[in-house]
């Protein structure tokens, strides 16, 4: 149904709405994962889908990540469009062979013969007290594998738009969800044809003094910092790379040319993180000549996520890290 209506809903509900619409529109879309049936998924994303679509399309799997991802690849190459829920992103490790060595390479390796239209939903990030094996942000790994696409929504509207685009895409798309955003509320378009183009970076908040590139929960913290700084007359421009791979650099480069200052941020461990790649591309570009200060990279500490709550929050960038970084860039400290 085409409509201009919007309604308020959570990030969780928006993902579900996106999946529901696509499943209604296309019978080839199936959904598989652990506890996605009666339980409704570990984070409640698939609640109610079993009732609507039945066991044929909502496939509750055993605890077998390698088989889930492998099955998705096989189903995708033969005509279905599987969506998989990996309960925690951490467990993608168990499905990586099927994803990285099979799904991502098939088309190229076979000279363009096959296509692998599948989506992996990957709840990521810390903040829940689930400790080192349930809190990781492993997106950089996936962004190192040509053939995969990696997207990550930061608002409910983006969640709906991107999950729909991911399902319609003819490639394996890793859809990274941020656990701490599931309850975030925002206006979401109800239009069934509303999708967000994969491969686009957007300006989340226009500004002129400093460019911040951030996504996920870290983006929300950047926005808080920007609100605070605005009261002091500092206008931060925030860019959101909705697609982490392959990344649309143009808006970032344009922004840095305007502001001369760049902060890249994510909660994934800093070393080897996506932020480093963004910085490298900025430095390679014409924006290099416009930089007025060293670039700031905010990232998670190079440690596994600790359990204790204070340690856990100290392990990843927080609002104040943005504020101080901006002060430093503008020589205000």
């Amino acid at each position: 149904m085409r409509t201009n209506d919007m309604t308020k809903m959570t990030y969780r509900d928006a993902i579900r709405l996106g999946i529901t619409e696509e499943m209604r529109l296309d019978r080839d879309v199936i959904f598989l994962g652990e506890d996605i049936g009666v339980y409704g998924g570990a984070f409640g994303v698939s609640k109610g889908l079993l009732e609507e679509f039945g066991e044929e399309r909502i496939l509750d799997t055993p605890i077998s990540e390698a088989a889930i991802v492998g099955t998705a690849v096989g189903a995708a190459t033969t005509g279905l469009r599987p969506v998989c829920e990996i309960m925690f992103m951490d467990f993608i490790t168990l499905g990586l062979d099927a994803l990285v060595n099979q799904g991502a390479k098939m088309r190229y390796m076979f000279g363009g013969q096959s296509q692998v239209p599948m989506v992996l939903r990957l709840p990521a990030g810390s903040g829940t007290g689930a400790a080192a094996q349930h809190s990781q942000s492993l997106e950089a790994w996936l962004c190192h594998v040509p053939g995969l696409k990696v997207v990550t929504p930061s608002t409910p509207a983006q969640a709906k738009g991107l999950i729909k685009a991911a399902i319609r895409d003819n490639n394996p798309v890793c859809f990274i969800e941020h656990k701490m955003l599931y309850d975030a509320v925002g206006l979401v378009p109800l239009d069934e044809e509303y999708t967000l183009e994969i491969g686009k970076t957007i300006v989340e908040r226009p500004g002129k003094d400093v460019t911040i590139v951030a996504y996920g929960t870290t983006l929300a913290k950047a926005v808080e910092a920007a609100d605070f700084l605005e009261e002091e007359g500092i206008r931060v421009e925030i860019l959101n790379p909705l697609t982490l791979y392959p990344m649309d650099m143009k808006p970032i480069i344009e922004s840095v040319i305007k502001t001369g200052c760049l902060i890249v941020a994510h909660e994934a461990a800093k070393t080897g993180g996506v932020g480093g790649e963004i910085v490298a591309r900025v430095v390679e570009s014409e924006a290099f000549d416009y930089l007025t200060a060293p670039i700031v990279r905010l990232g998670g500490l190079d440690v596994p996520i600790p359990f204790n709550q204070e340690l856990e929050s100290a392990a990843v960038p927080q609002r104040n890290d943005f504020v101080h970084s901006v002060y430093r860039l503008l020589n205000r400290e």
Partner: protein
Amino acid sequence: MIELSEELLLRMYYKMNQARYFEEKLDELDVKGLVHGTVHLALGQEAAGVMACLALEEGDLVSLSHRGHAQAIGFGLDVNLMMAECLGKDTGYCKGKGGSMHIADVENGNLGANGVVGGGFGLSCGAALTQKYQHTGKVVLCFAGDGATNTGSFHESLNLASIWKLPVVFFIENNQYGMSNPVENHMNVENISDRSEAYNMPGLTIDGNDFLDVYNTVTKALRYARAGKGPVLIEAKTYRFSGHSKSDKQLYRDEQEVKEWQKKDPLLKMKEYLRENRIFTEKQIQKMETEAMISIEQAVEFAKKSPSPQLDTILADVYA
């Protein structure tokens, strides 16, 4: 039949009660919002976790599942340090870095509770390889749930343990569900122990709520593995009374089923046994229960009073 001394029976009953109280207390703290993160309770599975560990010899090793409190208590861990870990304190087993799901005491042979379902199978093979290589005569007891036996790691590890005759006992607590998924929906074998046939190793299914059945079977399996005959797979049929974790609304099972299993409560069953065999007086039984309860109350006190880790410890222990 294995002889059970009065002293051993006493220890068994005490530890079973400690495990029960530990989790009831932890649940209470969790409901009050005092526990950060997730807690997986093994209420109803105490005979399995505790008794399997009590069958071990000094120096044997264990790999615990994510539902590992009773297992840890059976293995002899200090409930003070366990509770402190669950509350993220510096005095906890992992200095507050692991929490309930990762309680470890490596020096004493507890290789750690595992948050990755199936994560312990390979580790246990490796630990068993060390025992074999170094001729220590020690055995590894590997805990996991029914759901974990559907992982690739389970099958790869059983095969490896079998061909190399590793001294490891795989102990599966079949509590009828992997989260919300009932066993009959997630595997097509009647008994998990049937899976041992594919790897040509002994497989046994036992009543996981019967403390004697667990103790005797694990004792025999450990003997077999210790003698160099290779691995054993044990399936202990049991039931978890509580939800998978706090957020579990338990829509996948009905109350009647829970009630039926509660009649088979392993603690009650053991108490009945003690009474029927007139091994201890009522007073002695009650004394053990009270002492177990007090030990847990003290553990909570200890944990609450303990300091949080200093912020600068965040960078410690990434590398050796």
